[in-house]
């Protein structure tokens, strides 16, 4: 597959075109935080400032709240109406390699044994346009998890910022398809290709934060009973759900009904293992204590998920480190486990 390129000042035109028959999401900071917002036709200057979103792209496929079904009570009793997402194609532009990997990780979970129609419908209708990182944050540690800031096999189409232009490379058929529909592209030279590669390599070098995953599974297992360790590392945690909600792979949810017996919706919403209520049963709660919940979170990501799906459910995006109000740092915690 060959490389194409587009001038950054052409992006706006491209976006306007693309958004005609599909929903296009691009990084935007207009709401006071960076997230993927529907393309508003205004400014495509995110390439100038965008490093990564606060809310990960998972929110587009597994939204914070989504209606699953509607129930209505009529003369003949209850009627159930399935509320699946509409099949409108969707393009997400600017997904970083770490987040693209995260989507692959949640894909396995949501398609395991029982298919999750809500997530998968959206995923199937979506084309992920990746954007390689030239300027990783100091919280990034994706390289420790076999992710490279400059390249990705997890996207459909990968863009690299080479200055005034974006270099584009189709990674999947979907990407190929999309690429073929884009206008205003030109062929990229080998020089530009290697420039992109070079930028990717230099980005890789900029990442200094890391975790050591070698032998981690065993270390995790043996750390489980180390209550003192978990109590120590959890002491400053505030038990809020920020780390789980900004995590691109956290997928826990709750199912609730709208408070209306006659006509209401059943909704699915994000939930967090950091909340004591998450596992509370009327008579007992296996994870009432904070350290148990913290332990669950890290063990889930680095042990259980790996056992069940052969991959660590962390991509090193660093959001949890960045957004945590008390600076609980996953690399520190995993480092601590390795050092036990």
């Amino acid at each position, binding site marked *: 597959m060959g490389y194409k390129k587009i001038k950054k000042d052409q992006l706006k035109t491209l976006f306007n075109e693309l958004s005609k028959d599909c929903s296009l999401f691009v990084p935007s900071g207009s709401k006071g935080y960076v997230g993927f917002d529907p393309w508003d036709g205004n400014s495509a200057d995110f390439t100038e400032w965008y490093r990564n979103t606060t809310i990960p792209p998972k929110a587009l496929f597994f939204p914070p709240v989504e209606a699953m079904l509607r129930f209505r009570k009529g003369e003949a009793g209850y009627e159930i109406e399935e509320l699946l997402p509409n099949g409108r194609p969707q393009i997400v532009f600017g997904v970083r390699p770490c987040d693209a990997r995260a989507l692959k990780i949640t894909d396995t979970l949501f398609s395991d044994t029982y298919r999750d129609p809500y997530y998968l419908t959206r995923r199937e209708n979506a084309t992920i346009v990746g954007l390689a990182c030239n300027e990783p944050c100091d919280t990034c540690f994706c390289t420790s998890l076999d992710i490279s800031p400059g390249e990705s096999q997890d996207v459909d189409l990968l863009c690299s910022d080479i200055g005034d232009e974006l270099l584009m490379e189709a990674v999947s058929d979907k990407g190929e398809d999309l690429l073929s529909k884009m206008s205003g592209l030109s062929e990229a030279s080998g020089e530009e290709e290697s420039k992109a590669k070079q930028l990717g390599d230099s980005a890789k070098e900029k990442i200094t934060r890391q975790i050591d995953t070698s032998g981690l599974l065993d270390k995790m297992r043996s750390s489980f009973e180390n209550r003192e360790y978990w109590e120590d590392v959890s002491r400053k945690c505030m038990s*809020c759900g920020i780390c789980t909600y900004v995590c691109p792979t956290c997928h826990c949810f709750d199912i609730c009904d709208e*408070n209306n017996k006659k006509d209401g919706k059943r909704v699915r919403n*994000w939930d967090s293992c950091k909340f004591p209520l998450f596992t509370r049963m009327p008579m007992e709660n296996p994870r009432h204590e904070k350290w148990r919940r913290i332990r669950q979170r890290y063990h889930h990501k680095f042990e259980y998920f790996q056992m069940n799906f052969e991959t660590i459910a962390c991509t090193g995006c660093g959001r949890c480190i960045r957004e945590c109000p*008390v600076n609980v740092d996953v690399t520190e915690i995993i480092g601590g486990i390795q050092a036990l």
Partner: protein
Amino acid sequence: MENRLKEEAGKLLKEGKVDYIVGYGKGTVNLRTSPLITNKEEDLEGLVINPFIANNLSRYPVELKGRVGIVVKGCDSRSLTSLMQDKKVKREDLIIFGVPCEGVVDLKKLAGQIGAEIDRVTDAEKEGENLTLQVDGSKKTIPFRDVIFDKCYGCEHPTPLEYDMLLGSEVAPNLDIEKSLERIKELEGMDAQERWNYWKEQFSKCIRCYGCRNVCPACFCERCFVDVNMPQWVATYATWQDNLTFQLIRTLHVAGRCSDCGECERACPVGIPLRSLQRKMVEEVKDLFGHEVGIDKDAPPVFSHYEATDPDEFMK
């Protein structure tokens, strides 16, 4: 200052006068500090005091079992006193290290000021009235007052009111109330519909991570009202209606307890200007009942008592 703290904190731990020291340590992210909570003497080497100690640590003694030595700034000390009023901590269980505070750097503001993200800054130090930074290898100097949190402009008690040991000399308030209330005044200038729409838009962003609640030292309930499901006052999922209702009720619950430490707003990952609600209530409670938060640890909480002469003009 730092050395004195390390020394005194070490003594407290060694002599068994406290079970934990709660202070600030260096964070793992550029410029940031992080709560340092420890019962081990060797960890105390990591204690720092600098213009980046944003966290309000007063919440921790509520959770920790035992006696605690704690580092507080002016606003934190008033949160702590408020917690004493609410009987969540006992004064005699605390050894308080007061840090006279000239303001804490708002890293978002700082990023805006230097036009680059914080991880570009390699070194930052307060020198007199200025903050000296190394940005991408070059030195930059910006006025300190330009990069501190908005709350700091409205801080009437920068020196902790309740302490056992003051680290440094008292700091006189350097008030710029107008600047501190800028956003509130702006909102007050709008008409009702505009204001409502403003908040509606803000709370459409809310994802219910409960960061605001969980960092708030005034939110000390064992079970938050949103977690009550019989009846389900507020839906557990994030709709702007329920998000707003949740925050309004939370605002009422912390009114009279909120010391305007600004932690809720700092914690919010989606940038909802929560201080504009909380600070507003600080003003209202003061105006209505003459109550200032965290001044008198022996006074009853503001909504646990009343005066026969409380304002009444809004009643028909």
